[in-house]
């Protein structure tokens, strides 16, 4: 083969390789666009937790919030547990999710502590870590009383 023909061949070869790379990149881009999960859940808003009259007097009261939950194409109901307690004149709402690995804590009336069943995380009534592995205290949620309905609402 002569030199000019050789260079023509390699130019054409580069063009074809480039074209194939372009098609591959296009398809890969599409797959990437589709495969990357969408981030971000629903925006926070005030949700009814319980009636003010159902709030216990001796310790935190667990409230179960039921919400519609969209899990992709699967629709289900998600239940979130929060603990609501009196805090002086106001109220305190704590998430029931242990800050260690996400288990659900329960309130132990006799010890006056929140206990995590998984790895022994222990929190006091205000959600501060007392013992165990949790790196930080229970998450505090905003809570308010709806004056019209006398409902306790938390921001979730």
């Amino acid at each position, binding site marked *: 083969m002569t030199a000019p023909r050789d260079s023509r*061949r390699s130019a054409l070869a580069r063009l074809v390789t480039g074209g194939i790379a372009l098609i591959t990149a296009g398809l890969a881009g*599409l*797959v990437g666009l589709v495969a990357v999960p969408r981030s971000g859940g629903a925006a926070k808003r005030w949700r009814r937790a319980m009636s003010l009259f159902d709030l216990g007097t001796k310790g935190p009261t667990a409230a179960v919030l039921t919400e*519609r939950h969209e899990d992709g194409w699967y629709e289900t109901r998600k239940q979130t547990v929060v603990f609501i307690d009196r805090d002086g004149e106001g109220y305190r709402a704590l998430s029931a999710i242990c800050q260690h690995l996400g288990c659900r804590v329960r309130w132990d009336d006799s010890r006056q502590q929140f206990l995590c069943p998984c790895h022994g995380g222990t929190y006091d009534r205000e959600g501060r870590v007392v013992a165990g592995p949790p790196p930080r205290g229970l998450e505090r949620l905003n809570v308010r009383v709806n004056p019209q309905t006398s409902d306790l609402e938390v921001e979730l």
Partner: protein
Amino acid sequence: MSRRLAAVLDWLDDRTGFRVINHHLLDEPLPPGTGWWFTLGSVLLFGLGVQVVTGIALALYYAPTPDHAWDSVRFITTEIPAGRFLRGLHHWGASVVVVAAVVHLARVVFFGSYRKPREANWIVGFILLHVILAFGLTGYLLPWDQRAYWATVVAINISKLTPFVGEIVAGLLRGGPDIGALTLTRWYAIHVLVLPPALAGLVVVHLYLMRRQGVSGPIKARAGSPRPFFPYQAWRDLVMAIAVGVLLAALAWKGAPALEAPADPTASGYVPRPEWYFLGLFQLLKYFPGKLEVIGALILPGVVMTILALLPWIDRGQSREWRARRGLLAVFTAGLAGVATLTILGGMDHPKAGPAGWNIREAAGAALIQADDRCHRCHVADGIAAPIEVGRIDRPADWLAAHIADPEMIAPGLREPPETNQRDAAAILAALARLRSEAPPATDAATAHLDIVVNRTCLGCHTIDGVGGKDGPDLSTAGRKYDAAAIERRIINPVDVRPDAQMPAFGGKLPAEDIRAIAAWLAARK
């Protein structure tokens, strides 16, 4: 090429010897005159590649269960970025593959490329064609909408016609006593687990045999020296792939055809239609009624396919020129034309189901659904339940009926369930059935109120436009007989007009303005 990249490639070549493989794969010498007609196989390969890639992407979100298949496809189309386009690519890509396969096959026939020594590869290609059609058939069911479900019902019923073993074949295809969950998982497994490796294996064999025997080249051998495949033929392949890719993207831009209502085995009167490449078979069936059906469904296609498979042994001449093969090419062309004609006839034979207006019960149901104090207590954006949207209703009718009668059944203690009487419930159910696939006509508050009142009060005894009770006269064309004032008198106190009237008096039971509105509305029905 930079020196560093060259060094990396040299190292890689030293350890793997990839350049020899590359050279072997790409520098295949092609006979002079190998031109555009020989790009069709590559186009087909490109189309199959698109199907594999888009299919994998779809599988990330698809759920093969009757409860969720339809919902997951809807989710892909409406919620996933580029999801509509992705599904469009996969849908239209299937058509591109079928067309490319048939054109490729026709090219092989017209060029006589199946001749000795390429008989084995002809058979491999013949099997590949059926694998492609099996992909189309199994994939059609997966969206689990009415179209998918009923086309599959027909396909499985056709398989029952198989002599002697029909029930066994149909049972294997169904996976259970009825077409349902077990059919869906089975066809999904075939579509994504059985056919792809079969396709890949057969394609490799097909290409291996093509390389082993060499490309057949133009009908009349031309003078000149062979040229390597890459890049002298590859650029043609690329141009064709880009052209087909652009066409495919344009088709897919608006997505696949919209999902129909979710599969409903109880729906009566749905006219099933197969995907277009099975329309020819579908049409052929119509010419063989009753006991003869097996001829159109299996025997005739079987005979044609057998002849096609045996082509290399039927046409054993030496010359590949058309002049020497006139008879065979004429028969083949006639066959293609026959398939095309049947397909077109099948396509034209559309069921004439005009979009019927919403009858009074359906309209009343739509109005009740819209009312603030009922469904919208829960079914609103951000509500405890999903908003009621056209095309999103996928619960079966009996579930919906139970839910309307007692919403608490689904979500105990969440909210005070609305009171619903039987006639309202029937109306809501009727409206939901239509909302599966179409939006209600726009209406004003007065009409909505009237629809609800008529449904609640009149339809118990009277029929209007085919819905309602049979105890009283049909009121569909009441306006032909009476004017508004006469009708109003009859509603207020029927005995005033006819002493033997059975109808209860509504004067005092219904607000006077409602009675007037009903009378005016009925008087307008002529």
